[in-house]
């Protein structure tokens, strides 16, 4: 069997490998959950990785051939976003965690594209994930969608246990509620320095609560998700780029190693993770330069 090139990627090296991988993919097609269970029960070593790699290879091959895509989902991935958005960043981190190829489209929210307006008519905001052309909106919804559709591919973002999932969802909701509203206050809705300071103190209070949550959820491990980045990690991690910029504005660190030491170490680990590279902004000046554009977009929306 000759190599089958797919967009420049040679997937199969020999006929025996092809047959082996075809049988695996047949197993996936017949019983995707069974394979997912096998993958989750494997200890973290190369056997799991090779099944995952095989699975991803099958997905790419099948997509190209128009074959049914069980356990992975049919169709190309496209993400509409703005590079500074915490909500977009978290989706990109998850796509990276699962090594999912996707087309990224930087949106101009001052002049919204027809694709954005058509895909998210209710909110007209980013992120929007398009999967085979079908839109999925709301960042936490998108993250869970990716985790479910590609359940057997790469690490899981949400835990398997229902109680642990509920705890993760609770803290994720808490982050977007408390940190999110303070973030809006610190950057966009404050009209005076007093208002900004008030928002900063709300952010710091929320981060102090999250310090406790990290201690509890991680059980001494590196992330809220334990050994690996999980749901709460990506949700909070999306804000880190802006925290760096806000630190410059206010002249002190929001995640203060003296007050929230666990979170300070967590931030270093998260930023250093492969999945965060290139998507979590680390240039505070670049973000601050972009802030007037964002403020202008918000002002034009308000008209």
């Amino acid at each position: 069997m000759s190599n089958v090139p797919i967009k420049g990627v040679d997937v199969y090296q020999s006929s025996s490998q092809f047959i082996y991988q075809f049988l695996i993919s047949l197993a996936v097609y017949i019983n995707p959950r069974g394979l997912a269970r096998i993958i989750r029960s494997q200890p973290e070593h190369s056997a799991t990785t090779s099944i995952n790699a095989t699975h991803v290879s099958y997905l790419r091959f099948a997509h190209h051939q128009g074959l049914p895509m069980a356990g992975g989902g049919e169709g190309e991935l496209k993400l509409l976003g703005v590079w500074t958005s915490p909500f977009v960043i978290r989706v990109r981190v998850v796509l990276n965690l699962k090594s999912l190829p996707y087309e990224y489209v930087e949106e101009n929210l001052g002049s919204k594209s027809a694709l954005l307006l058509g895909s998210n008519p209710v909110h007209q905001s980013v992120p929007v994930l398009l999967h085979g052309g079908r839109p999925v909106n709301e960042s936490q919804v998108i993250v869970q969608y990716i985790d479910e559709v590609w359940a057997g591919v790469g690490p899981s973002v949400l835990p398997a246990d229902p109680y642990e999932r509920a705890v993760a969802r609770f803290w994720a909701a808490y982050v977007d509620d408390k940190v999110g509203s303070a973030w809006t206050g610190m950057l966009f809705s404050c009209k005076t320095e007093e208002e900004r300071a008030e928002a900063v103190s709300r952010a710091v209070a929320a981060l102090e609560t999250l310090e406790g949550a990290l201690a509890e959820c991680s059980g001494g491990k590196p992330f809220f998700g334990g050994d690996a980045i999980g749901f709460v990690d990506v949700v909070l991690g999306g804000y880190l780029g802006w925290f760096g910029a806000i630190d410059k504005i206010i002249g002190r660190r929001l995640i203060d190693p003296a007050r929230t030491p666990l979170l300070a170490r967590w931030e270093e680990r998260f930023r250093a993770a492969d999945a965060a590279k290139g998507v979590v902004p680390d240039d505070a000046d670049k973000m601050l330069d972009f802030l007037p554009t964002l403020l202008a977009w918000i002002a034009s929306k308000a008209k």
Partner: protein
Amino acid sequence: MAEKGVKVFGMWASPMVIRVEWALRLKGVVYEYVDEDLASKSDALLRRNPVTKKVPVLVHDGKPIVESTIIVEYIDEAWKDGYPIMPADPHDRAQARFWARFADDKCNAAIYPVFTATGKAQREVVREAQRCLKTLETALEGKKFFGGDAIGYLDVVVGWYAYWLPVIEEVSGASIVTDEELPLMKAWFDRFLAVDVVKDTLPPRDKLLALNMARRAQLLSA
């Protein structure tokens, strides 16, 4: 000594609590219900939910779960062989979660002002509430329930509108969900309230009406 069983900390007039009860009853789960006085919360509640201190709280074998929509998903996952609450297809699940967020964030925020608004201001807030509900209504098109032929997650999350909105309308004198403005939603209200699990769990209407009238009077005099 492991605590066993299912307990719900709630408040009889709370729509967020009733979601949890509907979900448990759909699964046929037997639970103990603890009614809270929100003006004087019990130590048990505060111990179980120290972060937000709100109801509902579900305690399952000693473990507390909070936030009503999170609890509903938990119930679906913990009793996965029972009645299916979440849709099976991931895209349908994403849609259901999207609309649930929209309802809780946007529709509720648009509905609350109707409660205390009067006169011309009331007409404005009613129109805004109707705009939100009309957007939500698009998720009903061509279906008996948001969940399809049978009630599902989104019905459980927004179902409280079917019982509480008419009460809010009566208390405030406003007219929000009418045959002219929201025909699909009005028809869904009737179908939803006819579902056994739903109608067996509703708080008494006269009590709910009296509570809301008193609350409205209190807010207007403040």
